[in-house]
């Protein structure tokens, strides 16, 4: 039996938004008895398990909580109630390049981003050539990345993220990056991960991508999991709900 690598048990997530971001707004609101905190529920009591090596797609309309699930898995957010257990090194491909600094060179950013993703200096040094090769921007690597085009920027970020040797790869809508040939390359790399037993969780609005790539799909809507199972079926249900 394969072991469970991600487990959600009765997980709920509420957001409480402060309506007033400054004292100037907050103090009058407090005196007038207005609501100072708004709560809204993203999802309620959802449970699922993901086993090692599975490739799971998450679909649903905007605001249904797809990205929130990824953030919970990544440990960036905490659930309001319920428990989440995650084992293994995670590489988040959530909006790539979050830690990049525009004034630093490509090479310096590799070290910085690698460290953010939890690599040691030694691991980065060992992999740096391969990161540069994969990104195909060798000739610009010692220039500040503020001079990069957005495509080059994304290539570099993607290239760093896949060299973390993740056990769990979380991918959020990123495959719109770069030109067609680089996208092709990214998909190939992800296929390679898949065959190597890396667990992949993919969020996308592109149902074709999901169907092509994932064997299991979780469809989430109206605060609940509507369907969890075979990709074709989940996508069909989702499509019929959309009408």
């Amino acid at each position, binding site marked *: 039996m394969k072991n469970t690598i991600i487990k959600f048990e009765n997980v709920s997530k509420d*957001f*409480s938004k*402060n309506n007033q*971001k*400054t*004292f*100037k707004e*907050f103090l009058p609101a407090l005196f007038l008895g207005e609501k100072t905190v708004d709560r809204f529920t993203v999802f309620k009591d959802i449970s699922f398990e993901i086993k090692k090596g599975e490739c799971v797609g998450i679909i649903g309309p905007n605001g249904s909580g797809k990205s929130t699930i990824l*953030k919970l898995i*990544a*440990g*960036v*957010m*905490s659930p309001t109630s319920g428990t989440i257990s995650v084992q293994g090194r*995670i590489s*988040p491909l*959530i*909006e790539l390049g*979050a*830690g990049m*600094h525009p*004034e*630093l060179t490509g090479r*310096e950013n590799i*070290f*910085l981003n690698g*460290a*953010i*993703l*939890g*690599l*040691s*200096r030694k691991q980065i040094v060992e992999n740096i050539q391969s990161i540069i090769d994969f990104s195909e921007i060798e000739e610009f690597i010692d220039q*500040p990345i503020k001079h990069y085009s957005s495509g080059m920027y994304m290539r570099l970020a993607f290239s760093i993220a896949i060299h973390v040797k993740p056990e769990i790869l979380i991918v959020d809508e990123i495959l719109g990056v770069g030109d067609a040939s680089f996208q092709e390359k990214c998909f190939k790399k992800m296929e390679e991960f898949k065959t190597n037993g890396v667990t992949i969780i993919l969020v996308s609005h592109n149902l074709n991508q999901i169907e092509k790539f994932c064997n299991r799909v979780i469809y989430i809507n109206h605060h609940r999991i509507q369907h969890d199972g075979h990709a074709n079926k989940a996508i069909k249900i989702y499509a019929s709900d959309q009408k």
Partner: protein
Amino acid sequence: MQELFKEIASIVKWRELLWQMVGREVKARYKQSVLGYFWVILNPLAQMLVMSFAFSIILRIPTNASSHIPYSIFLFVGLLPWTLFSNSLGSASASLVGSASLITKVYFPRTILVVSTIIAKIIDFLFASTVLIAYMVYYHIPISFSILWIFPIFFIQQIFTLGLSLFFAAANLLYRDIQYLLSLILILWMYLTPVIYPADIVPDQYKFIFQLNPLSVIINAYRQVILGGLEPKYSSLLIALALSVLTLVIGLKYFKSREKIFADNI
């Protein structure tokens, strides 16, 4: 306390990230401006010169016990650590908000953002201190072995700074006003700390304010060990140490209790 050791352990585990973040801060500044690191030296130097003019030539504040010491040096010994404190606290409080994009995307110990900002400021401080050393050599200020006391005093200062920074950084995420409030607090705080005047001209009935203010004990102690060639007052230093550790424990506790909702609130 246990929380503190756990946090230290996780920062040690993520030390590579810590150094990278410090490097990011330092390198980015160096690259952005023509004068680069020179600003770090020029800034306190200019401040010191103008303040010396205002307070020793116009206002004639005495330097008392160390009367053979020129006012400019007397001032600088206090001004440098104060600037370090005030810059660290100011930048560290803004550090979480400034790294919003990271906080919502990747997991790592959040305290690293605060600690790395403070370390970067310490590096600035070391650069700025070279001016003081040059100054002291120029004026032939005698120094004794008691100068080694600056290391424990510096350590206490950093504990205090870190504790307050953790508190303000977390609070600032909830209400951005905290930043503005903090800059007001820092201005008032400077005047209630013997930076521009010596501690011993403070009237007796107000001395308690200064004893409870770790910064005033710390700055006074720097002056005693650097300029006076004396040993610091142990009792005051111990109180400052105890207050600083307490501040750190409370600051960290608050930070950790808010940490879970950082990503929700940015």
